[in-house]
């Protein structure tokens, strides 16, 4: 009722006023983006959220950058060229990368970027290794393991020596030595481990680059870093101020930027949680672009001076339905009775492939896309999104087919399941409408197949969800995955490898999956990798550890006077947040 009233109010408010129609470019030179995200930290080695990362990639520069909208082609930034086997930058065994560092690049304080800054920045990125931070992204390819600490939380004895061996300099060159070939390393370096000023950092009390002190900076408290709220990079914008009170970032143009100064003088990134307020500010021209998700699109269409750019690809797989193969039954209310008696399910309920297949045939993929996503996006064919190499568009898909679902339900548990029925609870985290709808579609369709099948759908707050998830108490859970870097390995490993984030909780382990994931990651030949990933996709279709629903697309809302924006799906917070260097207002 209240939502309807609010929607009606917003529609009334959408009627263009004469003043809005006549609006000239407002605040030329100042680009304002309104978001709902709250940046966590501006320290590139600490932050792992898209809101912070988007700002970081405007202030700092990595070695390489994706060429405009491409997620495959790289262009050099701090490096003078992208290393390859052809130019000698990558050794024949694929384990040594030699990267020439560009001269003449200046930090925001006017000092010059040196190879020592580059080495120190990458080593700092690895050695800081805060819990739940991004360090493992570079640690895995460069050191061969994912944490500087063991299970006992103590620092591993070889970390320092391994890091020195992996990241070093030779004159003007940065040398990276990998323990084994790691195909995505360059794409990781295009987003992570940007270059910071060592001199500035040390003067503010940060790590001095020595073995004697590095442990002091391992797994730090967020606010202790000088880079938490201040910045010293070489990117096209410098940080003027982060006002944590008003949730506002103000960036100023880097006048001596080596590729020439940006067209925009200032960029304002502001957190405004209320959609109605964001929309009114966009209408009034006080905002140039705003965050708005799919259900809000109809309220933005037809606004005077506002442009909607739709069908923008993403590098994400969301939502995904995960089956838990061995459910933790201790004090678990999600399982019902915990037995196959019609009032619950046993802990290994989803270990039966027929149950998983029956669920796969019970989901209305087309209905979800047409009704929830307003017809935007296409059905996913596997764990790897279609914007990445390794995605097989011709892969097999499940469709809603209740007859086939019934066949599998009848076969499951030797026919016992069909006779006794089952009951369990599926949970989603409160406030996530697509995930809620996924649960409801499964419930509706499965309950219609056999009246003895009962599924309760329960909304739980994120803390409760997290608690139940971690302890493998959820029989089914609906989550998603966003890319850290545009490589199929970034989806294949966390979703399908037995040591990946999700299979660990699912208690899903299949040696064939592990073998294929590892083989593809070590293969640097794109064509060969694609073949391996196609096999992996077929295997995932047959084994059904998860249900992949949609290859989603997004839309962007901006004022018509915004020029020069391009969509790169791997850029953090894209298509809402941006790489501001190319943007102008005229």
């Amino acid at each position: 009722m209240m939502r309807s009233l609010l929607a009606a109010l917003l529609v009334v408010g959408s009627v263009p006023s004469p003043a809005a129609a006549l609006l000239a470019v407002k605040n030329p030179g100042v680009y304002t983006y309104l978001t709902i995200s709250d940046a966590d930290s501006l320290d590139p080695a600490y932050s792992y959220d898209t809101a912070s990362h988007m700002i970081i990639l405007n202030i700092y520069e990595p070695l390489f950058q994706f060429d405009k909208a491409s997620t495959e082609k790289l262009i050099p930034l701090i490096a003078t060229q992208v290393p390859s086997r052809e130019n000698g930058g990558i050794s024949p065994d694929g384990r040594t990368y030699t990267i020439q560092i560009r001269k003449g690049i200046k930090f925001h304080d006017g000092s010059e970027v040196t190879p020592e800054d580059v080495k120190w920045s990458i080593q700092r990125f690895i050695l800081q290794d805060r819990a739940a931070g991004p360090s493992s992204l570079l640690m895995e390819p460069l050191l061969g393991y994912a944490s500087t600490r063991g299970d006992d939380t103590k620092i591993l004895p070889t970390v320092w020596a391994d890091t020195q061996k992996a990241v070093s300099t030779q004159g003007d060159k940065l040398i990276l030595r990998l323990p084994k070939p790691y195909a995505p390393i360059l794409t990781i370096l295009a987003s992570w481990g940007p270059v910071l000023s060592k001199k500035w950092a040390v003067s503010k009390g940060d790590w001095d680059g020595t073995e004697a002190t590095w442990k002091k900076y391992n797994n730090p408290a967020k606010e202790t870093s000088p880079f938490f709220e201040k910045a010293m990079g070489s990117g096209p914008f410098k940080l003027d101020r982060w006002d944590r009170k008003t949730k506002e970032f103000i960036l100023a143009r880097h006048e001596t930027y080596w590729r020439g100064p940006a067209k925009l003088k200032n960029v304002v990134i502001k957190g405004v949680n209320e959609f109605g307020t964001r929309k009114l500010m966009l209408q009034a021209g006080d905002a140039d672009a705003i965050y708005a998700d799919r259900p809000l699109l109809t309220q933005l269409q037809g606004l005077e001076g506002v442009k909607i750019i739709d069908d923008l690809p993403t590098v994400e797989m969301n939502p995904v339905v995960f089956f838990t193969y061995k459910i933790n039954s201790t004090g678990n209310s999600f399982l019902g009775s915990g037995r196959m008696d019609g009032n619950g399910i046993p802990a290994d309920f989803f270990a039966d492939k027929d149950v998983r297949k029956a669920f796969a045939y019970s989901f209305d993929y087309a209905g979800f896309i047409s009704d929830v996503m307003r017809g935007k996006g296409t059905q996913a064919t596997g764990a790897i999104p279609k914007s990445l190499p390794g995605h097989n568009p011709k892969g097999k898909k499940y469709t809603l087919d209740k007859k086939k679902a019934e066949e599998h339900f009848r076969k499951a548990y030797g026919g016992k399941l069909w006779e006794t029925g089952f009951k369990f609870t599926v949970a989603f985290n409160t406030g996530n409408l697509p995930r809620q709808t996924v649960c409801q579609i499964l419930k509706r369709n499965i309950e219609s197949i056999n009246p003895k099948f009962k599924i309760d759908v329960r909304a739980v707050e994120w803390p409760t969800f997290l608690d139940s998830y971690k302890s493998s108490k959820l029989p089914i859970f609906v989550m998603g995955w966003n890319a850290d870097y545009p490589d199929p390995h970034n989806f294949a490993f966390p979703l399908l490898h037995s040591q990946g984030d999700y299979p660990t909780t699912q208690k899903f382990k299949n040696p064939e999956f592990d073998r294929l994931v590892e083989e593809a990651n070590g293969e640097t030949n794109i064509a060969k990798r694609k073949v391996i990933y196609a096999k992996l996709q077929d295997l995932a279709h047959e084994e059904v550890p998860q249900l992949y629903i949609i290859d989603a697309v997004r839309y962007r809302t901006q004022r018509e006077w915004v020029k020069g924006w391009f969509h790169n799906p791997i850029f953090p917070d894209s298509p809402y947040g941006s790489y501001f260097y190319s943007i102008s207002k005229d």
Partner: protein
Amino acid sequence: MLKFCLKRLAFLPLVMFGVTALLFACLQFLSPEMRASLYIKDPRQLSQLEAVIEKHGLRKPVYVQYGLWLKQVAQGELGYSETAKMPVAQAVRAFFPATFELTLIAFIPIMLVGVYFGVLSAVYKDKLVDHISRFVAITGYSLPSFVLGLLLLMVFYGKLHWFPPGRYALETDMLVHADTFRHFTGLLTLDCLLNGQWTAFVDVAKHMVLPAATLLYISVALLLRITRSSMLEELSKDYVRTARAKGLPERVIIRKHALANALIPVVTLSSLLFIGLLGGVVITETVFDFPGIGRWGVQAAQQLDIPGVLGSTLLAAFLFVMANLVSDLLYAVVDPRIRVGN
């Protein structure tokens, strides 16, 4: 009176201790995994859940964590608020002045309008002014603040471009953060005036008009109705009838006799209203993108930001004790029968 005040203030640490102890007791019902959700926002971080629990000491018994927190407090620190991205004490200093300023600006009109129209409504019971007052009161009380806020924004910002949301425009933002701008009081309107920045003052004031108007409209209703009913009760009492029989002018009867007695419940309600506003008006602050303490407090609670919750709760407890003290003192002012301290 001084003794009375000191006695009441002596209870303050006890109240605060009680509140925080109660909060920590409630924490026993939350698992370490639940509380780690404050630091785990993205599925990419899920595999590090145990490391996060270890890092923040969330597996320690609650009484140990309370002891550590009390030790911190004894050292003058209130911990670090993840939602505010700053230490708790700094967060209170950052958010509270904005709410205090907004409360002050809204509260004076609330009192004037509420009491004036409440009295008028009682004196002219069932007349046109009473009907209008009651209609305004009922609509104000029943209209959700986010609907009213958005309506006001649409008209006065979307259509007329008069009163924008937020705290200030970009130019003022730059100005108040410049080294030359001195923050004398923390109240931005006042500081702009004291710095001689007239344009900035107008800009800040313009940004406060709509949130203040929203607060006025939604808060005045209760005060108006209480004043009206209290006044009606007084006007029907024998001493008023006697005063009328003695031939006292109606104006004197209302102002000097009936109103003074009718004000006691109004004082109680006003102090509660004032605390309510100071504690933060979450929806109004959210709709108008106003960086107040309420928005922070709610975010802290939603995200299980325990230091943030403790900080905002301590502030609320402090305000509650202080407002009660002030209202007790005011009772003595409005009613000579009450003698504070005796």
